[in-house]
């Protein structure tokens, strides 16, 4: 066991301070009475109240949520299919090219992705709105999903599918009854990844959104250009707490599952 020396203690404090001081300040000032963001004038929750009255923000939040749910769901379906074909499709013409191309958007600068999508939508005469943002988000988050799912599929024992076929499943049934339930954790985490990517995307959304639909990150960004208001602090605090609760829940669930599995395995050994 390593002892906690003064050096370790100091580096730990410095590191975490560097990471979290900005967020802590934001949270503190969201409870500020004053309208001035940098002057403390006593505790208040009035900005949260005002936030609920602000239709523009609520609208943007609603749009963001819709976009995130739709795009991550579509990205998960498409990404899983792509991963399945690339891992299982055997050798077909251009397989290496395709698997390289799946990863390319991961390293492509977002500005370029956004710009090219914008040009495409203008070219085919698609009005920019919720639909275009959904399509754009699906496009880039699909790659992340397929990376996550294909890494699970690579370690997937092929003979499980063969066993399903052997026992009378058609290939589609084998996928639905055996493959999908087993890779489900990877698919779910792919979905969550796509969801969060869509939730906080600013660059691509700003290229593909129109006057009819604005997402929350765009709203916050444009509001800040006019000056930081305590309302934004309140909104950000809410987002921070949602993410925190989500992450903690997910890790607790995983921990619980691991513990249960261990208990069961020990019970099996004893039996």
């Amino acid at each position: 066991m390593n002892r906690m020396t003064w050096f370790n203690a100091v580096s730990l404090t410095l590191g975490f301070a560097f990471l979290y001081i900005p967020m802590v300040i934001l949270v503190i000032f969201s409870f500020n009475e004053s309208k001035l963001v940098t002057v403390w004038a006593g505790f208040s929750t009035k900005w949260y109240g005002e936030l609920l009255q602000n239709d523009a923000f609520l609208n943007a939040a609603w749009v963001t949520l819709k976009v995130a749910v739709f795009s991550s769901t579509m990205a998960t379906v498409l990404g899983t299919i792509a991963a399945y074909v690339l891992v299982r499709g055997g050798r077909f013409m251009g397989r290496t090219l395709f698997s390289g191309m799946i990863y390319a958007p991961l390293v492509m600068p977002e500005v370029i992705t956004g710009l090219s999508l914008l040009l495409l939508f203008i070219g085919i005469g698609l009005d920019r709105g919720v639909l275009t943002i959904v399509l754009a988000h699906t496009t880039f988050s699909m790659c992340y999903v397929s990376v996550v799912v294909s890494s699970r599929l690579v370690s997937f024992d092929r003979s499980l599918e063969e066993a399903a076929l052997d026992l009378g499943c058609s290939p589609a049934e084998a996928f639905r009854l055996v493959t999908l339930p087993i890779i489900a954790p990877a698919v779910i985490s792919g979905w969550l990844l796509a969801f969060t990517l869509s939730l906080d995307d600013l660059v691509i959304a700003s290229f593909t959104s129109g006057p009819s639909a604005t997402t929350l990150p765009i709203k916050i960004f444009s509001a800040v250009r006019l000056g930081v208001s305590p309302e934004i602090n309140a909104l950000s605090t809410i987002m921070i707490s949602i993410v925190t609760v989500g992450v903690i829940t997910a890790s607790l669930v995983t921990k619980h599952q691991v513990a249960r599995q261990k208990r069961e395995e020990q019970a099996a050994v004893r039996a």
Partner: protein
Amino acid sequence: MIHFQNVTKRFGEFTAIDNLTIDIYEREFYALLGPSGCGKTTLMRMLAGFETPTEGKIFLAGQDIAPVPPNKRAVNMMFQSYALFPHLSIWENIAFGLKREGMPKHDINDRVEEMLRLTRLEKFARRKPHQISGGQRQRVALARSLAKAPKLLLLDEPLGALDKKLRQDTQFELMDIQEKTGTTFVIVTHDQEEAMTVASRVAVMDHGKIVQVATPDRIYETPNSVYVADFIGDVNLIEGTVRPNGGGSYAMSWREGQPPLNVQSGNEFSDGQKAHLAIRPEKVSISAEKPAAADNAVQGRILDIAYLGNISTYHVELPTGAVIKAQSANTRRIARRDFTWEDSVWLSWTATAGVLLAE
């Protein structure tokens, strides 16, 4: 019941199965035995439907099975890795194939219960595969593949992952189950002892070809080639040239200055033909004095003794430098053993003890 007709399977440049023709009969326990890479697993996967032959045809009960997909074949397979579905309980694993068949619910219940009884797994029905031991998993895999009452059951190295004691018990269980269900079993293995124990017929394979198909005792006693003799069990191979003495009797001269060996052989050899004498160590007796009435006797010096508990194998070096292995049962306690290292001994065997092979 199964007929392979001139089947060839190539993977690119590599020929896994080379123009092979075999028959497997109903209710038979058929073992495909060979070193890894000899094509035995490919042969089995073609029966299951996961590979298609490049050339030739496979008939199951008179029907060409090439166009039949795996899920429509009355063939089930027990996988080497068991391939149990980790997200389903033992009960659901066994019921999986029956549900696909659309069997009524209470029939499924009865059948699964029957399978659980057969494989003595009643207590574990509600467990998940990761909650049971390796031996139990292996029985689940067997129960699952038997549940649909297939005409033919394929077993791919089924006992590879078990330790020796458990493997022996399971081998007898397998034979028992095969007799009870009357299913045709085809087992793939590289373990010759396993093949000899369970199978009614053994096919020895090498490089995509069948070298010999026979009952275990015939494979052991009368191998048709040096390859089979060497692959199955322990063997002494003596090379020499033969001279027929009439009536199936041959004199084999094998070393300068040594008297020729007397051999009885069913195989015909011409005068001066090169041949190998394959003789099992347990058929060579060892003694201190020269036996009076032995067909063949040679003198040598004990080089090494391998003590295996029930038997001992003596490695005896002849004056010519050749080493011959002789085995004898340890009927007396080890302290009373007659021979020790460096002792001069006589090895002897009868004319019919060995097999004369051309190659």
